[in-house]
C-alpha cells in the first residue's frame, strides 16, 4: 500500500490510473500533467515510485483543489445562485433542466444531477 495525499492505495495500481480513480478532481489531463511534472512514465506502477517521488506527488496534489474542497466549491456556487434567486439557482433547486431543455418528456439527467448538494 502507498499513502498518497492521505489515501492508502494498492501497490499494483498504475500511477496515472490510481490518481484518476481515487481523487475527485483529477482526470486524464491533470493526472498526465502531474506525472510529467515528476517524470513518472505513463505505465509506471505505484510500487516503482521512490519515497521522495511519493512525497513530491503528495506535495503537488496539495496545491490542487480536490475531493471535499472541490465539491464544497460546487455546492457553494449552487447555493449562491439559489440565494440570489437566479433562474439557474431555482432550476437547480427544483431538479429541472437549467439550460433551456424541454421538460415535456424525459429529463432524466436533470432529475439525477440537478440539486443543491450536487454530487459532482
Amino acid at each position, binding site marked *: 500500500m502507498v499513502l498518497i495525499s492521505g489515501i492508502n492505495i494498492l501497490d499494483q495500481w498504475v500511477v496515472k490510473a490510481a490518481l484518476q480513480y481515487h481523487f475527485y478532481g483529477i482526470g486524464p489531463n491533470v493526472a498526465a500533467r502531474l506525472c510529467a511534472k515528476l517524470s513518472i*512514465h505513463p505505465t509506471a506502477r505505484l510500487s516503482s515510485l521512490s519515497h521522495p517521488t511519493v512525497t513530491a506527488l503528495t506535495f503537488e496534489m496539495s496545491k490542487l483543489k480536490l475531493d471535499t474542497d472541490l465539491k464544497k466549491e460546487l455546492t457553494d456556487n449552487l447555493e449562491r445562485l439559489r440565494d440570489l434567486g437566479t433562474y439557474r439557482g431555482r432550476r437547480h433547486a427544483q431538479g429541472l433542466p437549467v439550460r433551456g431543455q424541454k421538460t415535456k418528456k424525459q429529463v432524466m439527467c436533470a432529475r*439525477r444531477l440537478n440539486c443543491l448538494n450536487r454530487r459532482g
Partner: protein
Amino acid sequence: MALTSCWRCLRLPRLLNAPANRVVLHPLPLRPRSAPFTTASALLANPPKKQNSGQGHQKAIMAKQKTTTNKYHHKKKKMDVSAKQLFEIGERKRIRKNIVLSNTSAPVVPLPEMMLDICGRGETEGTVFQIPDSVLDSLKALGAFKTGQHWPYFQRPSTLVRKGSVEIGKLISWINEEGIAEGEERYARRILDGTRGSGRSIVLAQAMNWAIQSNWVVIAIPDAQELVIGHTEYEFDPAWSLWVQKEYTAALLGRILKANSTVLGRLEPVEDHKMGKTETSPSTLAKLVNIGVQDPQISNDVFMALLKELSTPGRPPVLFALDNLGQISLPSAYRDTAFELIHAHDLALPNTFLSYLSGASRFPRGLTLAATSSVCSKTKDLTHALRGVEHGPWDKVDERIAKSVEGAGLVELEKLSKEEVKAIMEWYNAGGVLRQPVTIESVTEQYAISSGNPKELFRNCLRLKY
C-alpha cells in the same frame, strides 16, 4: 320427478357429462392464479413473494427508503480485490517476447556454418548458412533474434547470405585486417534500408555473429521502440543535459556483459572509475559494467564510461547496432516538466547512438550499424534524409533528423534474385517447411508471388497447398 337435463336444449349438466373414470396423465401442482390477460404460462412465473406484514416489514421499507432517497442514484461497484489475476505482471510480455530457436520435430538440414572465413566473400552470396552454436547465447543475449521470424520452424537457426550481408562482411574484414599502422582509424557507419520484410534485422544479426566471432565488443539496442514509447523510467540528468533511462540502461549493460563477458574480462580500464558505492576502481571493464548492472542509479554514467574506454586506441573493435532507427527519429511519448513532448534525440541512449552514427563520436576501430523500421510510418524526415529528397515548401521539417544520419552510408537490401529464391526454397524443402518439389516452375511461381521479398516468400512456402 324433475328432469336432470334441460328440457329445452336436452343438454346434460356438466357433472354428469364428465366421464366417470377420468385419468389425469400430468397432474399439475397447486399453482398460483395467473393474471387474467397474460398469455405467458403460469408455470414460467416466479413463485409468489411472501406477504410480510407487521412492524418488521414496515421497518424494512423505511430503511430502504432511507438508503435510496434518489432512485437514479447508482452505487459504485466495489473492486473485487480477492479475485486472482490470470497473469502475473509482465508474464504476458515474457510469453510474447519468448524466442524459440530450435524445432526438434523439424528434420536436420546439413548446412555449412557461418564462420568468420566466409565473412565478406562474394562467392558465398546466395548460400544458406547456419549460425554456429558458439555464438547463439551471445546473439540471444543481444536480442538479435526477433519474434515473428522463421526460427521456430527449423532445427537450427540458419540465414541466407545476400549482397547486403557481403557488403557488411567486407567492412568487418576491413576493420579486422591485421597490420594496421598505429593511429590509423578504421571506423565505418552504415544504415540498412529496405522494404518491409526485406531482411534488415537478419543482416544485423549476421553482422553481430561475425563481430562476436572476431572478438569484438558488441553493443546492441534490439528495438529502439522500447526507448521512446514511454514504458521505461526516465529522468533529467543535469550532468549530461539529457533525459536518462536508468533502468533500461542497466538492463542494456547486463545484456552487454552477458554477450561480451570474455572480451570485457580481458580489458583493463585506462582511467579510474570510482562510481557509486565502490571504493576502489574496477580492475576490468567487465567489473565496471557490472557496477552499472547492480546499481541502476549510475547505469548511464557507467555506460558512458564504457564507451569512453572503448574509444581509446588499442582497444578491440566495437559493433554498435540499433534496430528500428525510424522510431528514434520522432518526438517520444515522454513529456518534460512543462508537459512538452521530449524529442527522441534528447534521450540519452538514442542521442549517444546517433552521435556515433553521425560521426560526432568515433571508435578507433569499429562499425556503427542501424536498420530502418517499417512499423513506424511517420518518419518522412528520415526517408528524405536517406534518399536525399528535397522537402516541399510547406513541409514541417525536423532539422535534427538529417544531421543525425549525415555521412552514414546506405546499404539497400534489394529484392531476392531467382537464384537466391531457389536456394531458400531448397532449404525450406529440406527443412520440411515446403512440401512441393523445387522445380523451375515452382521457383518462378514463388518468385512472382513474393516479388523477391524474403518474408513474403517464407509465408507463401509455409502456407499449405491443396
